[in-house]
């Protein structure tokens, strides 16, 4: 019961689940509130602060991670829904101490300023290049039943779920093109 005079809403007790979460190749047993998003679990419980919270509404892409290799928005993903999936965050892109080619290209092409959007851009770009290789069409693909190419227009359209307040777009496009072609 609420204390006297407290007219705030009465919330039932949290409901939790004990799950195994596989992140960047490590299986971690954790207890999560069913309401918790993957973004909050990564940042608040697993100390993986690469994925960023920009909008928390699916609009900015700063929270992008890979689930079974596909890019998703971790701010709209409930953690309990991905206990049987493989999650990759920006921290998991580099292998054996070497930057992922996409990370190296971002450095080489100066594809960021403040860096806040960068982890999301990187995860998104890595998965996006694979989507093109798999022949997925986009909104600027002239013939949706034809092959997909990775030109500037295609990159811009396919990366439109990742916003950059610093406006580093020109160099982001160049970095992705360098890796994708």
């Amino acid at each position, binding site marked *: 019961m609420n204390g006297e005079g407290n007219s705030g809403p009465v919330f039932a007790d949290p409901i939790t689940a004990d799950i195994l979460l596989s992140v960047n190749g490590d299986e971690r047993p954790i207890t999560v509130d069913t*309401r918790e998003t993957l973004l909050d679990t990564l940042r608040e419980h697993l100390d993986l602060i690469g994925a960023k919270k920009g909008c928390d509404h699916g609009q900015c892409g700063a929270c992008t991670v890979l689930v079974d290799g*596909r890019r998703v*928005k971790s701010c709209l993903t*409930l953690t309990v829904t991905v206990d049987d999936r493989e999650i990759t965050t920006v921290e998991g892109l580099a292998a054996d101490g070497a930057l992922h080619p996409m990370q190296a290209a971002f450095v080489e092409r100066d594809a960021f300023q403040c860096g806040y959007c960068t982890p999301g851009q990187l995860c998104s770009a890595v998965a996006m290049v694979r989507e093109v290789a798999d022949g997925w069409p986009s909104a600027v693909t002239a013939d949706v039943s034809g092959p997909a190419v990775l030109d500037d227009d295609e990159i811009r*359209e396919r990366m439109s*779920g990742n916003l950059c307040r610093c406006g580093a777009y020109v160099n982001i496009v160049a970095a992705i093109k360098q890796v994708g072609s």
Partner: protein
Amino acid sequence: MRPFAYERATDVRSAVAACAAGTADGAGAVYLGGGTNLVDLMRLGVVSPGVLVDVTRLPFDGIEETAGGGLLIGAGVRNSDLAAHPLVRRRYPMLAQAVVAGASGQIRNMATVGGNLLQRTRCSYFQDVSKPCNKRVPGSGCPARRGDHRNLAVIGQSEACVATHPSDMAVPLAALGAVVHIEGPGGPRQVPMPGFHRLPGDAPERDTVLEPGDLVTAVEVPPLPFAARSRYRKVRDRVSFAFAVVSVAAALDLEDGMVRDCRIALGGVAHIPWRADRAESALRGSPATEAAFAQAAAEELAMATPLPHNAFKVPLARNVVVRTLLDLVEAP
């Protein structure tokens, strides 16, 4: 956000049973697809279910060919997989185009076909629990009518609600007469589009004909050979990652410069994906010319009753219909 129980259904019958059971204290159970709309609305306090029944592990995540040359699309198919499917791209290009015109790559990877059909309106008052809204709280009023309605409906709206249905995917599905397969507490049934979504009337809280606990299991797209010549065109306030202001899905069957048959549906103009029946019948048997297209579009839009700030949608919709049809005539 209200605490909720999470259940993962593995077969259709147990999913429906879990949803029907709800919670002891009466807070309803709802299905969870990709969560891209539901999780957001829960966070905003617009909906507060007591149980989420996750249906993304149900075996309805495939696309099969039907006997006559149509497709049976499982409700759990992700939007990305729908748009990438070779038969969707070849037989119904406007469907693939509409899906990739919506949201972003990340959201399309999460969003399911069922969830896309059932996404709620983007009317800003609906999403703001500090404001009245007949759709969210029946009887509380509709501030949009006198307030911000620039992107709301111009056809078929009611005194109670002027919201639009935001889905791009649903527009070609309405043009194709897709059939929604439903499994409910009372058994299975099928509802053809349009007819699955409802006009607001005096019950805007109901977006569709679904009853509580009904699960969408599949969407069946009938065979329509001439849909290989089809196109989706979307007008939005920025070039990508924005909801439609107006959109058009159209398919043309041409013979010797005449329209033998056609399909046309409009998005962004109504509480439902709007099938342009009048324009279609005006066009059947008429020459495939700009003048005929403009006449047909005008006949459809004659029934528009725009509000002060969205009257621009009427000429915009007319022009987009004409342009889309001309594109189809000029297509190789």
